[in-house]
Every structure is written in C-alpha cells, then in structure tokens.
C-alpha cells in the first residue's frame, strides 16, 4: 500500500507540474462544452428569407406577419417578382424563399386550397430540412387562424410537442455527448500517453525492476486520472445546467455511478493502447484515430445512428460511447432509473472487463 501511494502521489505531481497537461485536463472540457453548446448547434435562427407576394391580400399579410414574428426568420426583401432569386441564393444572402401565387387569398377562401411555394438553399441539407420544417409549422398555424377567421372547418390539425426537450435545444444533445468525449479524451488518451512516456524516458524499466507489482504500477497511473476525469464530468454537468439549462432529471448518484463506470472503461482502453505503443506519439495517434474519431462520428453524438449505413450501425455497437450516451441521456433528460438502462450498463461492464483482461495480459507479457 505504501508503495502504491508513493506511486500515485508521484503521478499527481507529474500532472500538476505540467501546464500543458493541466490545460488539457481542465481547459479543454470547459472550452469544448462552450464551443459545442454555442457554435455547433442544430438550431437555426435569423435565417434571411425573401417573401415573394404576388397576391398582396389579407391572408398573405397575416402569414407573412407570423413568419417574421418567429425568431427563426428575418426578411431581406418583400417583393412581387422572382426574377433575381437564383442570384440571391448563389450569393448566399438568401437561404429561404416563400412564394405566394396570385389570388392566393381568394382561392383559399373559395376552395380551401391554395399553393405556397417554398424554396430552400439545399447546399446545407440539414439546415434546409430544419428551415422548411419550421416554416411548415408556422404555415399550419396560420392556416388554422385563417380558417377560424372565415368560419371554415379545420382540416386535420397537427399539434406536435417535443417530449423531454420541448424547445429542441441542441445543448441537450451536446452536453451528454461532450461528457462521453471528454471522459474518453482524458482517461484513455492521457493515461496511454503517460504510460508511454515512462517507457520512452526509460523510467518504466526502473519501475519494473522495483518491487512494485505491475498491477500497482498500472493502478497508480490510473487513480489520479479517475479523480480528475470525475471532477471534469461534474464541471461539465454543472456548466450544462447553468449555461444551457440542461437538466439532470434522474438520480444524480446513479448518473455519477455510470460516469465512474465509463471512466474506468476508458482507462482500461487507455492501458490497452499504451501496451501497444512504444512512444507517446504513437499512443496519441492511436487514441485520436481509434478512439476520438469514432466517438465523435459513430456514437450517435452528432450523427443519428439510424441514418448510418448498416455496416456502420453494426460497428457502432462496439463503440463504448454509444452505450454511455444512451444511458446518460436517459438519466439526465428522461429521468430514467436503473430499470431502464440496466442493459446498456451491463454492456459497459462487460466491455470494461474485456479491455482490462486484455491489457493486464499484454502488460505482463511485456515484462517477459
């Protein structure tokens, strides 16, 4: 125990003494959550829109008012010709165009059917889909208003409500995702680098001839990072709540327990990587390309898993962050208890054991 404590203490000293390490451990989580929260967002706001109104009647004015009253759209011009539309789209100063046909109001009132044409800038398909979606919602609402005004029967009205995230805030997605990413970064990458550093400097040899058991070396390496990663998770959760209003609806203890499980999983991955890398550079590259990229791309963090090709969906099954993100989203946003996430938790536990087993085996082989 004394030997182990001496080792863990030394590890803390390394961390505290290196400004770059400190920056990675405490600066990056804060910066990332803020960047993801504010910049990489699914929400669209203040989209420049052109409304081409060839009808100019009460109903088109009402619809136009409703569109412009929403925070999503901002009018550029209000014209009655569509001559320059393509020019505008090309320049990029217009991203959405709404065209009301002649006699729009009359047709609507007479037959109950009138055409609105919506043209969106499809060069950014996600944004285009969102813009059209928002606009359709506004049109549907306006239609109901008009129907009421003129005493007409409402066709089927859709009233949608987004459960768990009524405002469809992007932060609800990015806070859980960022926790998964940061835990992976700190736990896996930093431990693999710090073990590889000892190999590179030759100090690992000194450790291996010492009476320290290999297990003590590995644990001593890992314990400080468990503590720091846990602290980071708490910081991210707090920032998410304070800045972006992302709630923790479920049991906090359960949530933190799952976080610790995921940290241990990431650490065992880090140890496994370090057994394969002779130098810090190699450890860093493996961590970045084998861990970070899949975490971002395949875990459902940014891109929905359902939309992936089948082969990638299968691949995403072996990505630990995928399961972790499901778990913490359920706990944080839906207030789910262990009853609802036990399967995913079991997957994480099984993965942890597998990685630990492999790395302990490989670590002792290295001794030979």
């Amino acid at each position, binding site marked *: 125990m*004394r*030997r182990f*404590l*001496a*080792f863990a*203490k*030394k590890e803390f*000293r*390394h961390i505290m*003494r*290196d400004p770059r390490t400190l920056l990675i451990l405490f600066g990056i989580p804060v910066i990332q959550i803020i960047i993801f929260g504010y910049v990489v967002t699914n929400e669209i706001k203040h989209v420049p829109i052109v409304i081409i109104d060839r009808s100019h009647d009460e109903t088109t004015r009402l619809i136009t008012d409703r569109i412009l009253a929403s925070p999503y759209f901002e009018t550029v011009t209000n014209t009655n010709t569509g001559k320059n539309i393509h020019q505008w789209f090309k320049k990029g100063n217009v991203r959405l165009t709404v065209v009301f046909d002649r006699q729009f109001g009359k047709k609507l009132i007479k037959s109950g059917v009138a055409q609105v044409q919506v043209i969106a800038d499809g060069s950014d398909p996600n944004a285009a889909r969102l813009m059209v979606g928002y606009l359709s919602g506004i049109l549907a609402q306006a239609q109901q208003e008009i129907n009421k005004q003129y005493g007409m029967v409402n066709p089927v009205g859709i009233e949608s409500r987004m459960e768990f995230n009524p405002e469809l805030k992007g932060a609800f997605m990015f806070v859980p995702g960022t926790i998964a990413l940061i835990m992976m970064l700190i736990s896996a990458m930093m431990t693999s680098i710090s073990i590889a550093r000892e190999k590179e*400097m*030759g*100090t690992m*040899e*000194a*450790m*291996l*001839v*010492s*009476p*320290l*058991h290999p297990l003590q070396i590995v644990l001593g390496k890992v314990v400080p990072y468990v503590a720091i990663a846990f602290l980071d998770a708490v910081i991210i959760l707090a920032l998410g709540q304070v800045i972006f209003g992302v709630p923790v609806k479920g049991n906090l203890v359960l949530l933190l327990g799952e976080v610790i499980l995921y940290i241990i999983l990431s650490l065992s991955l880090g140890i496994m990587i370090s057994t394969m890398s002779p130098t810090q550079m190699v450890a860093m590259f493996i961590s970045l390309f084998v861990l970070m990229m899949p975490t971002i791309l395949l875990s459902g963090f940014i891109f929905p898993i359902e939309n992936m090709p089948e082969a990638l969906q299968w691949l995403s099954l072996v990505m630990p962050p995928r399961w972790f993100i499901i778990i913490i989203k359920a706990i944080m946003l839906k207030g789910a208890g262990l009853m609802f996430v036990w399967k995913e938790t079991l997957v994480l536990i099984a993965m942890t054991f597998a990685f630990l087993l492999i790395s302990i085996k490989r670590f002792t082989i290295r*001794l*030979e």
Partner: protein
Amino acid sequence: MSVDRQNSVAGSDPVVQVRNLTKRFGHFTAVNNLSFEIAKGEIFGLLGANGAGKTTLIKMLCGLSRPTAGMANVAGYNLITQPEMIKRRIGYMSQKFSLYEDLTVQENIRFFGGIYGLSKREAIDAGNIMIGRLGLEKMKNRLIGSLPLGWKQKIAFSVAILHHPGLIFLDEPTSGVDPVTRRQFWEMILETAGRGYTIIVTTHYMDEAEYCNRVAVMVEGNIAALDSPENLQRHYHVANMEDLFWKLTREINGSVTKSIQP
C-alpha cells in the same frame, strides 16, 4: 593458471550464483549456457560489444526477463521461484537515465524510497544522508531536468542504493558521459564497493574494466574469458584490456573480424 577455475569464488556464500543460464529469442541465442559466481563486495564487470548479451544477462538477473533455461541465485533468492524477493534486494540503474526529470531531487528520493517500501521517516533520513554526502543541500529543491548530466548520474546512482540493496546492477551507466564525469562516477562506485556493496556493471569502455575486481568478456552470448584484469592481461600476453578484447573477439569469430582489419 586456469581461467575457468575463476568462475567460482572462494570463501563466504556468493551473492550471485549462475548455473547454465540461457536466453533464446526464437533461433537467436542471446545468452548461451553461462555459469559463474560473484562474491560479496566484488565489482564484477561485463565487457562486450553491443549485442554480445550483456544487457540480456543483466535483465535476467534482475528478474526483468525470464531465462529460457538454467538457474541462478541472486542476493540469496532463487531467480526462477522468488523474483519478487530479489527485486527488493537489488538496486538498478540503466543506460537510459531513470530519474523523473519533472520532479525535484528530494521528490525523486522520497518517491524511490516509497516504492522500495521505506517509511516516510526512513526515506527522509536516507535522503538527508545522501544529500549530505553528495553536497546537494543547495540543489535539493531543483528539478532533476535542470541539473547537469554529471549530477544527474550521481544522484541516480545514489537513489538506486537508497534502500541499501547489497547488490547493485549498473547497465552501461557511463555511456554518453564525458571522461571527467566518468572518472568521478567510478570513484563513487569504488567507494560504494568499499562499503561492502556488490556491484555488477556492464560497459563497452575498455579502460573502465581496469576498475573491476573481475571481468567477464562476453562475445556472442558466451563468456570468452573471466578473471581479474591483471590476470587476464598476463594470461593472454596483452598490455591492456583493449588489446585483450580484440584478441578474444578475433579468436572466436576470426574470419569476420580479420576481414575488417586493414
């Protein structure tokens, strides 16, 4: 006199006893069936070119590498069955510098004291004695990385014997060090051996062999000769260790060596 008879030592129990020790990597035999003994207080030199098997031999004796065949007793314990006990009783310093550059002198001392099982009190006491002996009072709070190489080397050696190991392994401790520092370092080794420590040292500087009580010249995994430097020079009719080394390497793989000779 026979060189072979020198493989065993007279008097008290040997600190190291090696019997038919062999290490193979696939088809390559790095250490071939070696047997020798080392007495307490001896400075035992392992000489040889790179790849002669010195480091492999040392790694086996430290418990870092498992022998393919043979057995050994090191510091009173069986190498095969009790490697963990051996690790507590030996000190080790390698050609790669083995202190932490981003820790201070004192932190390094406490850390290595800690992993060798010294209590905080013991580590502090042993550290103070060491700092006093080396005259390090002014430097004890400086980072190792900021010290000149000569000092690092001395501190690394002192840290390696902090826990009074009795048997010390030095694997090319002076490679890449200037002649003055090497000289000072050897004075330290001699002084330490004088206090009853047994020292096994590998080197490829032939002049350093003169400091050893006995020298084993390794050629391609075998011990080509083993005796005191004086006896070896007399026996092989050479003036210094450099010439002896040439003679032995040529004898064993003559044709190859001859062809590179002018």
